[in-house]
Each structure stands twice: as C-alpha cells, then as structure tokens.
C-alpha cells in the first residue's frame, strides 16, 4: 500500500528532524508508531536513512580528496576513518602484527637526541564537547586534546567530557570550573559534573571546599555552588564522602550508595529531600530492555557478559615465543617522537624468569625528522630501586616509566603504552603505561637541546621484538596481538582493544552528533 501525500509529508518532516538531531520525544513516538504500522513507511524510512548514509560516504570522500580546503574546526570528536583497521586486524593476528594508518608526518617540527626528565605532564584527554564556550574566551580545547596537570578549565556553557588517564570519565556542565590535579583527582570549585568510573579507576576523587568524594566503583554527580552546600548524588555503586572539617569540627566519613544523595556545608551534612539528580537524563545506565525477537535469519549469539572474561587459553595459541635466541624485526614506518601513537600487546613471562632474561619486548628508535633518534624500549623492570621487579618499564632515552604489577607471573597481561608529544611536538614526549587496563606510571622526558648529548643511534623504520638493537639481552616469554596505532588512545579505547569484541560499558551521554 502506497503512502498518501499527507503521510509522505509527515514522514519527510519526521525524518528531517531525525537527520538534523532536532527530533522531539513526541516526534520520535510518532515516527516509531508509523514505522510499526506501515511497511510503506518503513521503506520510506530505509530509503531516507540510506540516503543519509550515502551522503556520509560521499562527503567523506570529498573531504579526503580536498585536503587544502580550509575547514571549520570539528566541534565533535570523531575517530579517524582508518582507525577501525587496527583493532580487527589485531583480533585476527596469528601472531604479532603491526599495522599503521596512513598519516602525513612530514610537517611536524622536532628536536632529537637523548632525553631528560620533565615534571609537567598530561593527565587527561578531551573526549567530547558540545556547544562549549569558555569564560576566559582564550581557552581553545578541542576534542582529542591532552590536558595538563594543574590546568583550570572555566566552562561558561555547554558540555565537556574529559577522560582522565586513570579511565574516569568526567562530564562537566557549564557554567563550571574544574581543576585537574592529577590523573586520579579533580577539584570542582563550582559547577556540576557527572563521573563514570570503571573498575580500573576506582579511587578517583573529586574534591571541593566542602567535601571530597572518593569513588568506590560507581557513577555519581557533584553540584557545587559558591556560598551554598555542595550536593552529591550517587547513581550507581557507592562513594565515600569525606566532609572537610570546619572550625575544628571533624565530620565523619560517609558511604553513599546508589540513589542516595546528600548535601555538605560548613555546618555538616544532610540528606537532600526529594532530590532530583543533575544529569538525570544523561547519567546512570539505561533501563533494562525486554528481549525481542531477532530477524528470522539472524544467527544466535550468546549474551555478552558485563565484564570481559579472562582470555581463553587458546586465544594465544599462535603467540610469538621468545626463548632467548629468537627475535623479530618488522617494518614500522613513522614511529616518531613528534607524533602520538600507542603500542598495545599481550605478554606472558614465565614466573621466576631470571633478571638476565629481561631483554626488551618491543623496541625501536623513534625518529623525528633528523638523522638522530630516541631509543625507546618496552621491557620489564630489573632495577629494584626504580620499582617492583618484573613491572612494566618503558625507557625513553634516559627516562623511564615503571609500573607496579609484576608481569613475571606466568599469566597473560595486556600492555598499552601511549606516547603523546608534549606541546604539539616541540621537544617533549609524555609516556604513560597501562597494564590490564590500569594506569601504571607515566613520564614526560624532554628532548635535549644540546647537540653533544645526541645519541649515536639513527632512527629506523623497524620495530624490534624480543631484543633491543645493539643489546645482546633477549626477552624470554610470549607476545601476541601487537597493535601500533597512530593515535594517543584513551583508556576506553585501550580497554576495547583488550576486551576484543566486548562492548563499551554503557555510557550516558549522547553528545557526539554528526
């Protein structure tokens, strides 16, 4: 049965609103009603959305073909088109597999040579923005930007999502001020924020003149207003609230659980009657959906567990085994210290492996546009003065980040090391390590400006597996699913790689709209 003119007009209006992101709840209900009732309406809808999908493709092709055209700054984060190829290929890698996306590195400025320790570092990344305006008019953050420790953000309006390096995902609703104290702590002098804290980031803390809120595995919101009580709302899980002492009066710590809320001020704390959490429409996981019948031809698929299972024992059946003699070299173009990239892999090191068998797992010499390069080695720590024996150790020239978890236990561990050029590639490199999704150590070396200190190592287009160039020490153990991405991956993205096909934990903000 064909649609009448009136029906076509109505569907066109509804689909246009859908395409433009202006669909109201009433319109959505009406569209769903029409689609449920009419095959002709469904055909119209499929043709309309397919047109939009095709436009996405043609527009993407046009953009790729015209790199010199001045473009508006993207307001919303997007993943590079080639990014997807990294994960899937890792998943099918029979053994270590190195994949790069095509990025133009030719315009980056650089300095080369050995490195020295620098205290300033990045602690978070902007992972989403919507309609942001800044109170100082000078802030120019963009999605994907790294944010330094100690940075104060004065958001006049809009929504800003920041993912801390520990994995905590903070959404700030303007007007608000947020100070980034570390990868594990933020201060909210005023404004509203909502936090989603994955298991890896338990212990993340939001501080305020009235109260400190320490996450115990949860989602919560904090509302801070100058001269008024600070409100804490727990959507899921639980938090520990530590009220600050005023006039010498200590207040006891409180544990707030799901759907509890409390306000804190100088006189103490109290429950919030008839609390309406901020971000009510955004925070908290989605309600359970009733299962529905799949299309007839769809294959059965087991339910996806909420938490990634331990890697199946046969997952790494084809891992590369390093026995103290074996090593591999793979082509690796564009591994420079002036561009962001991330190295992830699985590793298993037999328990009790001697310290003499601690050669580099992955190593390369990072070039930067000149003949000299910075040697980078990912290995395990053999120096008890630097940290736990067996912990992940990433050396970048003379500086090293050392983790906490011993890899030398005979189990498979997922390792990710993120390299971010500091100050947009002008001489510093921020290195942070993740072991099994947990942030474990970071370091921000500065490239030396003294020519005498340059290494004699030339950058190469090769990544070494099982040994670092110029060293007789070999690695003993197994490696698998090596992935090199030309992005500074955020914790959620690393988690996604680690968990393979596991979906993201439900997030509660839909602000990335295209």
């Amino acid at each position: 049965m064909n649609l009448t003119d009136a029906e076509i007009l109505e569907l066109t209006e509804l689909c246009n609103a859908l395409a433009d992101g202006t669909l109201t709840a009433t319109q959505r209900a009406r569209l769903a009603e029409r689609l449920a009732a009419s095959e002709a309406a469904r055909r119209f809808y499929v043709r309309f959305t397919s047109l939009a999908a095709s436009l996405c493709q043609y527009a993407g092709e046009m953009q790729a073909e015209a790199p010199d055209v001045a473009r508006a700054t993207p307001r919303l984060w997007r993943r590079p088109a080639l990014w997807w190829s990294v994960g899937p290929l890792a998943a099918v890698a029979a053994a270590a597999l190195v994949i790069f996306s095509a990025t133009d590195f030719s315009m980056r400025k650089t300095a080369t040579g050995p490195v020295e320790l620098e205290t300033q570092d990045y602690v978070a990344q902007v992972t989403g923005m919507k309609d942001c305006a800044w109170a100082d008019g000078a802030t120019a953050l963009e999605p994907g930007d790294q944010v330094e420790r100690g940075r104060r953000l004065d958001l006049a309006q809009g929504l800003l999502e920041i993912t801390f390096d520990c994995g905590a995902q903070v959404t700030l609703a303007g007007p608000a001020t947020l100070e980034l104290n570390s990868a594990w702590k933020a201060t909210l002098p005023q404004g509203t924020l909502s936090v989603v804290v994955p298991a890896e980031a338990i212990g993340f803390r939001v501080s305020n003149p009235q109260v400190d809120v320490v996450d115990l595995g949860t989602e919560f919101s904090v509302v801070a207003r100058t001269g008024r009580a600070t409100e804490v709302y727990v959507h899921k899980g639980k938090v520990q609230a530590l009220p600050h002492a005023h006039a010498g009066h200590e207040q006891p710590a409180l544990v707030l659980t799901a759907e509890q809320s409390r306000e804190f001020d100088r006189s103490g704390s109290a429950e919030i009657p008839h609390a309406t959490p901020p971000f009510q429409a955004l925070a908290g996981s989605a309600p359970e959906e009733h299962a529905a019948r799949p299309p007839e031809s769809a294959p059965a698929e087991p339910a996806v567990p909420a938490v990634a299972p331990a890697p199946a024992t046969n997952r790494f059946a084809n891992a590369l085994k390093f026995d103290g003699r074996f090593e591999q070299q793979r082509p690796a173009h564009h591994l420079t210290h002036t561009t962001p990239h991330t190295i992830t892999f699985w590793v298993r090191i037999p328990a009790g492996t001697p310290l003499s068998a601690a050669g580099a797992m992955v190593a390369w010499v990072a070039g930067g546009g000149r003949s000299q390069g910075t040697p980078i080695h990912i290995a395990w720590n053999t120096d008890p003065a630097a940290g736990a024996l067996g912990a992940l150790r990433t050396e970048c020239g003379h500086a090293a980040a050392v983790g906490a978890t011993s890899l030398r236990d005979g189990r498979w561990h997922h390792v990710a090391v993120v390299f971010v050029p500091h100050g947009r590639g002008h001489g510093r490199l921020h290195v942070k390590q993740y072991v099994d999704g947990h942030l474990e150590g970071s370091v921000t070396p500065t490239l030396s400006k003294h020519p005498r200190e340059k290494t004699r190592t030339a950058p190469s287009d090769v990544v070494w597996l099982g040994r670092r160039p110029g060293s007789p020490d070999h690695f003993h153990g197994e490696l698998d699913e090596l992935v090199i991405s030309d992005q500074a991956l955020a914790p959620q993205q690393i988690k996604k790689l680690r968990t393979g096909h596991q979906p993201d934990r439900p997030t509660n903000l839909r602000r990335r709209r295209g």
Partner: protein
Amino acid sequence: MNGNSKWRDDAERNKQLMLLLTQHQRRIFSYLYTLVPDRHDAEDLLQETNLVICEKFTEFEPGTDFVAWACQIAWWRVRAARQKFARSKVVFDDTVLAAVAHTAVELRDETDRRHEALEQCLKKLHPRDRELVLTRYEPGSDVAAAARRSGRSLVAAYKALGRIRKLLMDCVSNQLAAEGAS
C-alpha cells in the same frame, strides 16, 4: 599441515577477509545507520561489527552472501548495544527495530542502486546546495558548522537541508524509475 602451508592459508584467509571488508564497508555501515541513525554511533558499531567479523571469519562459508552474513552480525551488535543507545534521542523499541532491519535487508539491492544514482544527482545540484549538504555530512561536521561555512543562519540551513534532501530523494527515485523503464 606443515607450518608453511598453514601460514599461507592464514595469509590467504586474511587477504580474503580484508578484501571483503573493504569492499562492503559502505553496505554494512548503511545497514547500521538505518538502525542507529547517528553517524558516530553507527561508526562505533561498525568497528565492533568489524571485530566480530574478523573473529568469526572462519565460520563464513566462501561463496555465500558476505553482506547478509555481516549484517546479521551487525544486527547483533546493535542488539548488544541497545543499553548504550537507549538514552539517545532516537531509539526504537525492539519490535520496530526488527521490522526496520527486515525492510533494510529486503531493500539491499535497491539501496545499492540508490547509492550509485545519488552520485549523479549530487552533480545536478546547484553548487551552493551541493556544498551545503556535503559539508553537513562531512566527518566531524554538523548543521551548525555547515550553516557557518555557507554563510546561512541556522534556521535557513535546516530549511535548505530539508529541501535538498527532498530534491535528492526525488532525483534518485526518478533515476531508478528511468533506468527501470529503459
């Protein structure tokens, strides 16, 4: 099977996988976009779908319909991600979603033809309209960005985009009808 032949088999399988994935990304994306009409959500799901396709590729029977197989996997990714998208502005209940998915599969061949026809229809647009609509659908862009770059007000951009989409829909339908008649 010795090591060398296994390596060759794996390499051949991976080559075939990448060929099929590359060849049919647009079709899988189009299917996903129909079910989750938000570019970024659909791209996220496309990545997840690609992962599962890679993992399960040994189960794919060569010579059968790869897109149909991939769309079944995509369907399950959408189902698995329903919680994730339940709070987005546009979400249909499972009954509607299943019905739309069924229609999308039925119209797959037509969708391919419409995609090719659209290329010609885009060329027929007034350059100013073509620039507006392509700017709107560029990665990372939105209506506001397209309005700014085209010098239109936001309201004018919404109206123009609605008009242009209708022009394109009509043009594509007419072109398919003409091809069918010839």
